[in-house]
């Protein structure tokens, strides 16, 4: 096994083009654990952390570009980012422990392809866009378009993510992420929800997006749930409709972590609670 520190993104693409079992390394909090557990080692590990700019958070057109090697801890310490997208940051900060936070990245969380990845529903709700670099050059792709199946993404051969963009948003906006785990930390989401809302001056929801995690092969956008919230102040009836839409969107598995019945019910509960938090963050009073 060889370990290569890539100098720039071009080198990453070139290395990925070679016919070898390559593995990209960002924080390594999935990569290293998996290598140890499965005892399967790639031919080559390509570390992307030293690519210029990739470990930085930069302001761009009122939003923020998060480099692919930015750690959860870095995001948590960035007060403007936190003010703009508190839900995304709280989702990233839920990943692992303090130690894991020092390394784990949002891009790695996405590319690991877990249906239960915490930052993904929050990114979906935020309509985050990934910057992808590959043999064909650079392109911007919605995070949603990259979701594929457990353990894989739609990234093509020799493509990788250099950054993720969280867009600008109006004043009366807020987002939130909530997950259900049987403990209080160090666990995997059994069902989770990211919600982003924009309100008008009267406190009525004018834009909404709702995404769920851990209840289908990938995180899912639930437009029915978003629709249920638009035009309301999150009264009981729209929340109930939101929960029902979430339940309908679930196609979870029955496993040791939770039954189908449980996941379906709890996904709606998480969505409604996240919606209420997002609403309050947007300045609304439910």
């Amino acid at each position, binding site marked *: 096994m060889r370990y290569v520190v890539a100098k720039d993104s071009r080198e990453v693409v070139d290395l990925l083009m070679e016919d070898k079992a390559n593995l990209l390394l960002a924080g390594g909090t999935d990569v290293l654990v998996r290598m140890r557990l499965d005892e399967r080692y790639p031919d080559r590990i390509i570390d992307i952390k030293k690519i210029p700019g990739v470990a930085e958070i930069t302001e761009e057109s009122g939003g923020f570009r998060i480099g692919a090697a930015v750690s959860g801890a870095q995001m948590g310490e960035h007060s403007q980012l936190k003010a703009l997208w508190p839900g995304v940051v709280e989702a990233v900060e839920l990943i692992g422990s303090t130690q894991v936070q020092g390394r784990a990245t949002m891009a790695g969380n996405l590319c690991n392809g877990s249906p239960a990845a915490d930052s993904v529903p929050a990114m979906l709700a935020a309509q985050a866009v990934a910057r992808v670099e590959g043999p064909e050059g650079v392109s911007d792709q919605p995070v949603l378009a990259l979701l594929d199946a457990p353990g894989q993404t739609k990234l093509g051969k020799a493509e990788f993510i250099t950054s993720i963009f969280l867009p600008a948003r109006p004043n009366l906006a807020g987002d939130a992420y909530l997950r259900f785990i049987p403990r*209080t930390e160090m666990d995997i989401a059994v069902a989770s929800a990211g919600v982003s809302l924009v309100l008008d001056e009267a406190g009525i929801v004018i834009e909404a997006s709702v995404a769920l995690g851990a209840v289908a092969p990938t995180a899912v956008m639930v437009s029915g749930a978003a629709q249920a919230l638009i035009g309301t102040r999150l009264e009981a009836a729209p929340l109930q409709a939101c929960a029902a839409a979430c339940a309908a969107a679930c196609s979870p598995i029955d496993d040791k972590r939770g039954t189908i019945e449980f996941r379906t019910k709890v996904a709606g509960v998480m969505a409604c609670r996240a919606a209420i938090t997002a609403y309050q963050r947007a300045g609304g009073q439910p």
Partner: protein
Amino acid sequence: MSKQEFKILGTRPIRPDGLDKVTGKAMFGADKSATGMLHARILRSPHAHAEIISIDTSKAKALPGVKAVITGADFDDVENRWTRYTMQNCMAQGRALYDGHAIAAVAATSKKIAGAALKLIEVEYKILPHVTDVDEAMQPGAPLLHEGVKARKLGDDVSGNTVGYYSFGHGDVDAGFAKADEVIERRFKTAATHQGYIEPQACLADLGADGRGALWCTTQGHYMVRETCAEILGIDASQLRVTASEIGGGFGGKTTVFIEPVALKLSQKSGRPVKLVMSREEVFRATGPTMSASMDVKIGMGKDGKITAGHARLRYQGGAFPYNMVMMGAMSAFACYDLENVQSEGWDVMTNRPKMISYRAPGAPMAVYGVESVIDELCQKLGLDPIEVRLLNAAKEGTKSSYGPRFKAIGLVEALKAAKAHPHYSAPLPANTGRGVACGFWFNFGGQVSVSMAINTDGTVNLIEGNPDIGGSRASISMMAAEALGIPFERIRTIVGDTASVGFSDVTDGSRVTFAVGIATINAAKAAIRELCKRAAMIWEIDEDAVEWVDGTARPTGHNAGDFPPMSLAEIAATSGKTGGPIAGHHEGAPDKAGVSFGVHLVDLEVDPETGFTSIKRYTAFQDVGKAIHPAYVEGQIQGGAVQGIGWALNEEYIYGADGRLQNPGFLDYRIPVASDLPMIDAVIIEVPNPGHPYGVRGCGETAIVPPLAAVANGVAQAVGVRLFELPMSPPKILKAL
């Protein structure tokens, strides 16, 4: 027994093993290496039950770097059947009896090569029907684990997997139920739980062709390891020197061997030292968890809260080999109460699961969970205060216990009264919150013990004992030695000697060490004091019995009183070379008056009605410990037991698929509580001295895991108004019940 005054006991000196542990200097099981050492790995069965048709190790042996490969065929039969079970659990012979059962082992120059070699071993299995559930395993016609081991008293209504039957009690339970105003009978199920020690089993073995060997391992009893391994390997116990490493948790799980005979055999075969360290997955699949249980509990109560009769039927599943632990459950079930009519029966059952081993108060938590749940339900139904009812029925000095003997001085009533008076019990309860109460009991043991104490010429003391320190015993033992000798704690260093350094000692279990080693230490100190007095007499040229020992000094007494200034231990020791040589004391014995211990736990918990998530809000544990030698350690024991019990109640379980394979062999899906899951556990120490110990010590390590299962279940029942009869009460189960 009147309260004694102590100088050192009851204080909280800094733990002597603390610095090494926090700086990483302490040597645990996996920390030792040797020149020329090989690394071993074990191939494990992927099947719950299978005949091993053939094992072809030729390709593995041919792999460069591989120095030895062994299978069950490398072990000769042993005479003692219990040792044979242990051996066959370490390495299968003929049949794989559970998912994870060891089939073969390799020693190679690196862990990686050993791992590659495992993949080259070809095993042909014939898959057999399996059973992992206790009730199914008891059914006649169930897949049989072993022939000819069925408990003799049992009939055809149970299968040959039923290896033990016990019954305890007195009075006439039917007559008692007839007198009751209310009778409730419930069926309960509890999952198998693992001790969850953080340090996996690990050892370094070195056994020469001459039958001389050394073994370093993480264990709760290195003499037990020595004797078991010597028997399995066919060598003399004297030739195998076993050293216990620092231990990263045991909780009963390290009271047997799982890997040591394998490492020794590989070392013998390769002629090299062999290191064997289990992975976490192996720990879950192949070491012993505790039993799972299926139980029927029936209790009758009068309107006044008096229990008229109690009957418990306990069916425990203990894995793939005969065992006998349900007895402890049957004995403990009703031990908290003074009952006229009581019976508890227990059945030990084998299944295709890893062989059980002790886990903190083995057998008691589940039985008591059943009993304390039914009592709680009766209290609810009759509108009675749960502590008042328990006080009305509580066992006290003189009570004929449900398992036979009469209790000496015990502290259940004191613990219940303390709980009742505690601000926790009267604090207001918010919505969706419930308060659970439960009692618990544990026997505590004495057992064989050896202590050797040397007085150094600078006035310091070295003490060697033979019990691995799993809960702070080195501190407590030094404190008792200091108290007995009358010198400062800091002057004493206690170490755990290896099997060649000090006499035999039983395993560290049964909360016995502070009690038993304590007695041996006090007696060793007395022996040393006799010698110190003799030397002083010699120096003063007076009669030996004209010297007494007061506050760490020898003083002339009787008609010599005041003739000479007192001589300190240090002064006498300084000249010991001229007065007859080194001064020492030792004691060997088997103290048997360990006092039983009772606890009462109070828990406030909140259940999220939309997710079934339970959060523990407040927890107070009251326990009679006789005498708390080092109260901080005692509180730690009480807190630790409570936490393990909370995990058992809420989330911990061995999950088996229909294929009989364990689905959650890791800490991600085997959920022990994490720190943020818990409030500070408030430990309230009650001291009703044990008349069987000079300082009043009772064991305190195990009782605290007994009450929490029922305390949490009773709290949940109160919070949500629905009672669950199965543990763990994980969120999906609670939500379903709502």
